[in-house]
C-alpha cells in the first residue's frame, strides 16, 4: 500500500480487512493525534487516551460510511475521548477534594505541590478545552499538526488573512479564559 494513497482509498481498503491500509492510516495520524491529546491532557494520561482513541477507531472503522472526511471523523473521536477523560477527571477530583477536606478537618498534613509550571500547563490545557470548536481547531492545526497558515487556510477553505485573524481571535479568547481562571 503506497503511503501517498488518499485517506478515502485507505479507509475503503481497511474496511475490507486490509491490514496494511489500516497501518498506513494509523501511522499517518498517530503523531498528530498524540500531539493533540498531549496538548489537552496532562502528560501522564496522554498515552492512555491516545490508545483509547485508536482502539475506538479500529473498532468503529467497519461502520464508518465516509459521509464526512476521515480526518473529521477521527478528530470527532479524539474530541469525544478527551471530553470523556475530563468527565472522569472532574468526577475523580471532586472525590479527591472531598477526601482532602476530610483529611484537613482531621488535622492531617497535606503535601501541596508548588510546581507552578505544572499548574500553568494544566490551566492552559483546561482553558483550551473550553474554547469554541473552531478556535481549538485552528490552534491545534498550527501547533499540534504543524500545518502552516497557508495550509490551514486551504484546509478551511478560507483566505490567508481570514485564517490569521481567526488565529488571533482564538489566542485572545484563550488568553481571556486563562486570565479569568487565574482570578
Amino acid at each position: 500500500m503506497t503511503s501517498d494513497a488518499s485517506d478515502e482509498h485507505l479507509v475503503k481498503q481497511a474496511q475490507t480487512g486490509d491490514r496494511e491500509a489500516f497501518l498506513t492510516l494509523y501511522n499517518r495520524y498517530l503523531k498528530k493525534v498524540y500531539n493533540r491529546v498531549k496538548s489537552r491532557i496532562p502528560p501522564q494520561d496522554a498515552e492512555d487516551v491516545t490508545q483509547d482513541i485508536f482502539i475506538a477507531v479500529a473498532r468503529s472503522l467497519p461502520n464508518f460510511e465516509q459521509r464526512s472526511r476521515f480526518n473529521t471523523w477521527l478528530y470527532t473521536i479524539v474530541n469525544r475521548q478527551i471530553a470523556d477523560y475530563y468527565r472522569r477527571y472532574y468526577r475523580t477530583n471532586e472525590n479527591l477534594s472531598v477526601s482532602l477536606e476530610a483529611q484537613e478537618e482531621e488535622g492531617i498534613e497535606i503535601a501541596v505541590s508548588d510546581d507552578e509550571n505544572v499548574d500553568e500547563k494544566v490551566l492552559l490545557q483546561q482553558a483550551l478545552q473550553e474554547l469554541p470548536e473552531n478556535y481549538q481547531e485552528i490552534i491545534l492545526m498550527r501547533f499540534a499538526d504543524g500545518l502552516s497558515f497557508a495550509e490551514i487556510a486551504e484546509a478551511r477553505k478560507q483566505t490567508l488573512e481570514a485564517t490569521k485573524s481567526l488565529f488571533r481571535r482564538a489566542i485572545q479568547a484563550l488568553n481571556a479564559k486563562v486570565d479569568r481562571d487565574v482570578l
Partner: protein
Amino acid sequence: MRLEDQLANYTDQLLVGQLPDELPAELEREARITRQLHAIIAPDTEMKADFRSRLNHSVMDEFEQAQRQHRQTRQTRKNILPFKLMSVQGLSAAAAILIVLVGAIAVFSDPGDDNPAPVGTTPEISIEAFAGFVVIGLVVVVGLYFFNRRQS
C-alpha cells in the same frame, strides 16, 4: 503590517526555533499565550518506544478483532436478512397490487347511484379515481424500491 500578520509571523518563528521579532505592546499578552502553547504543544516530542510498540500491538489486535466481528455480523445478516427482505418485498408488492385492484374494481363496479349504467353497457369510469389508486400503488412500489436500496 496588520497585528494578525505580526502574531502569525511570531508564531511561525517560534515554531521553527527562530528568535521571534519584537512585537508591539498590544500583542504582548497574545505573545505570552503563544509561547505557553508552544511549550505545552511541542510537535517534535517523540513518543516513547515502549508506548509506541504497545500501542501498535493493541491497535492492530483490535483492528483484527473488529474485522472478524464485522465479517461474522455480515454473514449472519446475509443468512437472516434475505428471508426477511423477501417477506417485506412480497407483502409490499402484494399490498401495491391489491390497492390498484381494489381501486379498479371499485371504479368499474360503482358508477354512482345518480347515474347508473344501463344494463349491457360499459359503466362510466372515473379516470381521476382510477389514477389516484394507481398513484398510491406506485408510491408503495417506489417506497419499496428505496427501502431495498437502503437495506442492500
